[in-house]
């Protein structure tokens, strides 16, 4: 048995895992589910020795383990297949499978290739791949590579295998093959820990499902007698209710309207509208299409068909630059580090990036005095904790970085603001500040806001209308939030129903 007892892990400003106790048995497929940031990956890294827990212990067959690193975990027959495909394209299938143990196949540093290829062939057979072990891995499909990674995990004679979203890069048929292998592992008395966002496949292949939320353990269910809706409810949860914010004065006019948005193979004639002064919430699990959809509207990604109207007029948006300059639409990305900020540049630089053109005089000189005044105002207004405006953004905390990521669009005086996961990886103080800010933008300044969030209390307390996304479609709408005060439980219940 692989047991976790009272595991806790903190990162600066965030408690990533809190008192997690779980048991994994050989011959059992145990699913681990939870929204982004729930702590699944951190937990996997603790099991495989990549991170050390701050609290709690890991027991393997009754004895306490202190893995020094991943290699140490592998030596104890625990192995992991990560979500990203990690193979060496230029090496052969066999080399990829035994790569980290090549030294065991031979003597005096000379590899016995015959033995390597035989061993590889044996494990390829186990995962049902009919491939030549001496073939290079380069031209294979994503599914084949994923299966080779699993063969690699098997070849370590692992008693426990951790699969992190193994089907995310696979198509329907390939997924079936993979699930078949999981069943076979179970018959061979291997313990499988199966991370996935897809509830259907979890219910299909797993024995048990455990759910994490905000780093806490929510519960474990037998898959045999669980419904999709139960698990969704456990994932989105009934966390502490946030105070009701009141009602918004929503205008009649549609400031943004999307008609028949289509991307072949993904979105099929999806419609949406946003009214003046409204906060429209987009709900849905990861991969449901909520972020992908708004990215189409503002020209970050290209749609195949469909029309966008801003203030009733047909809008030509080919890039985010068009969205910002022509229509004053801003987009606060969910990945502030990769897409939101120039980390190695200053606070001031990042805050004014969208308005340099507006700050420039006739001879194209940016009015630095005006710029400094604006930056100073913004730092004060947003309560950004920074020594000065010349500080590099990379040296600030997550919460302050997020304030800058939002602040640059406020500086640009956007009328329509799309805010994606505004409080991921942000401490509690900054979180509350950002919630009040979003509300005030709509309430006091009549900005129109689309809020995308996995955080249910946040979404429900701020939004006055909610669209529910599932499988690249809008499957439901909750539109009476601005008419009467609905309890948190009522709304989350409804969203859960739409998702299930």
């Amino acid at each position, binding site marked *: 048995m692989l047991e976790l007892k009272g595991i806790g892990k903190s990162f600066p400003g965030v408690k990533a895992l809190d008192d997690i106790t779980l048991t994994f048995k050989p011959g059992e497929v145990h699913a681990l589910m939870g929204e982004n940031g729930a702590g699944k990956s951190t937990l996997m890294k603790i099991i495989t020795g990549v991170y050390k827990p701050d609290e709690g212990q890991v027991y393997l067959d009754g004895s306490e383990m202190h893995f020094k690193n991943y290699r140490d975990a592998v030596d104890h027959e625990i192995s992991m297949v990560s979500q990203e495909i990690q193979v060496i394209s230029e090496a052969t299938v066999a080399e990829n499978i035994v790569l980290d143990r090549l030294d065991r196949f031979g003597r005096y540093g000379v590899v016995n290739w015959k033995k390597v290829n035989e061993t590889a062939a044996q494990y390829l057979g186990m995962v049902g791949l009919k491939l030549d072990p001496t073939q290079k891995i380069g031209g294979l499909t994503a599914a084949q590579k994923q299966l080779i990674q699993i063969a690699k995990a098997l070849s370590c004679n692992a008693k426990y295998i951790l699969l992190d979203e193994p089907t995310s890069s696979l198509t329907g048929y390939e997924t079936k093959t993979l699930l078949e292998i999981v069943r076979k592992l179970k018959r061979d008395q291997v313990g499988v820990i199966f991370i996935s966002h897809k509830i259907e496949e979890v219910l299909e292949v797993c024995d048990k499902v455990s759910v994490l939320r905000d780093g806490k353990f929510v519960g474990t269910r037998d898959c045999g007698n669980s419904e999709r809706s139960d698990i969704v409810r456990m994932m989105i949860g009934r966390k502490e209710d946030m105070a009701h914010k009141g009602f918004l004065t929503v205008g009649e006019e549609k400031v943004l309207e999307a008609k028949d948005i289509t991307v072949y193979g993904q979105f099929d004639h999806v419609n949406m509208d946003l009214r003046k002064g409204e906060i429209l919430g987009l709900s849905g699990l990861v991969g449901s299409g909520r972020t992908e959809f708004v990215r189409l509207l503002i020209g970050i990604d290209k749609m195949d068909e469909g029309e966008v109207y801003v203030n009733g007029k047909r809008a030509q948006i080919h890039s*985010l630059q068009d969205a910002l300059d022509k229509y004053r639409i801003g987009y606060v990305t969910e990945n502030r580090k990769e*897409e939101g900020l*120039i*980390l*190695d*540049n200053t606070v001031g630089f990042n805050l004014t990036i969208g308005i340099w053109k507006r700050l*420039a005089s006739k001879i194209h000189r940016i009015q630095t005095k005006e710029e400094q005044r604006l930056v100073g105002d913004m730092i004060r207004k947003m309560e950004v904790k920074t020594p000065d405006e010349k500080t590099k953004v990379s040296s600030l905390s997550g919460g302050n970085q997020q304030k800058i990521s939002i602040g640059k669009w406020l500086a640009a005086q956007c009328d329509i603001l799309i805010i994606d996961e505004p409080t991921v990886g942000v401490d509690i103080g900054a979180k509350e500040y950002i919630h009040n800010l979003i509300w005030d933008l709509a309430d006091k300044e009549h900005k129109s806001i689309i809020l995308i969030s996995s955080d249910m209390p946040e979404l429900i307390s701020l939004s006055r209308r909610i669209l529910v996304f599932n499988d690249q479609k809008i499957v439901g709408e909750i539109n009476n939030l601005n008419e009467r005060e609905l309890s948190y439980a009522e709304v989350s219940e409804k969203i859960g129903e739409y998702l299930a």
Partner: protein
Amino acid sequence: MKEKSVQETGAKKSGKWKAVFARSEVTVLLAVVVLSICFAAMSDGFFTAYNLFNISRTASIYVFIALAQGIVCVVGGMNVSLGSMGGLIVVFIGYAMQNLGVGIFPAILIGLGTGVAAGFLNGMIITKLKLNAFVVTLATSFIFAGLVSGISRGYSYTEIADNFDFVGRSGLFGIPMLLIIALITIAFLIYMFRYTTLGRRLLATGGNQEAARMSGINSERMIVTANIMSGLFTAIAALLWVSKAGSAQPSTGSDWMIISFAVTAIGGTALAGGVFNGLGMLFAAFLLVMVKNGLVAINANVYYEETYLGLILLFAVSLESIKAIINAHNRKNRLKKQQLEK
């Protein structure tokens, strides 16, 4: 919290001077001063008006060669074709003047036009086909190099228009014209990167191309623009080279690629992008020329010249890493001390 306050008060005391010395252009300037003193002490020929005039002229051209590299480094790219691009421009000017008999101004226009076109070509291939700048410019460098030898057959063009050497060989109050042009250009670029939308957008693109795009900047256009400017600076370097030499030699540019990277890196313009250091590049250009010149002046074994240059370059690029290692070491010690005090 306690640790932070200790850090802050410590930083405030010595902060100002530390900040000045931490700037890479100050480091390079110090190196230039120290080297000049050494060379002047060791040789009579070094610190003469004639020699300094010469050093300044070469350094000024190095400035343009380095700017051609630096401007694409700013957006996170590189241009390994600028040497053969320079050669091609020189050959075009020479051919135009010798074989077609054009005058000074048409020749200058041909040179600048060739540079702009070549840079535009690089930029378009990089952005439209989404290819790596290194691979693209490596390929075009062969294309340009082939054109150079194909057109010139290796012969120099010596029938250069009269007065074409005016800029390259004359001076104003004893200051070479070339240096004046280089200084004006650097001043303009410093202004551009600090105060104009274009400059800032170039920096943002190099700092994080995706974030720049997601902030409403057309980062592809910025990359093309940087490549055009790279071609333009290469063309200016080529024109000045012909003006200084008085003839158009097809071998021009063979060492430009190395020089451009050396000056850019020593001068503190990060090859990874997002940073421009104009003064640093100016001083670095002088440093490089002085090392070459000074070694001759002190009768050092010039066969090893490239080894000395390589060592200087290696030292310059590792300076940041060395600083980081020392800082990490100091921080560890401080934390250890604090823990012991507890």
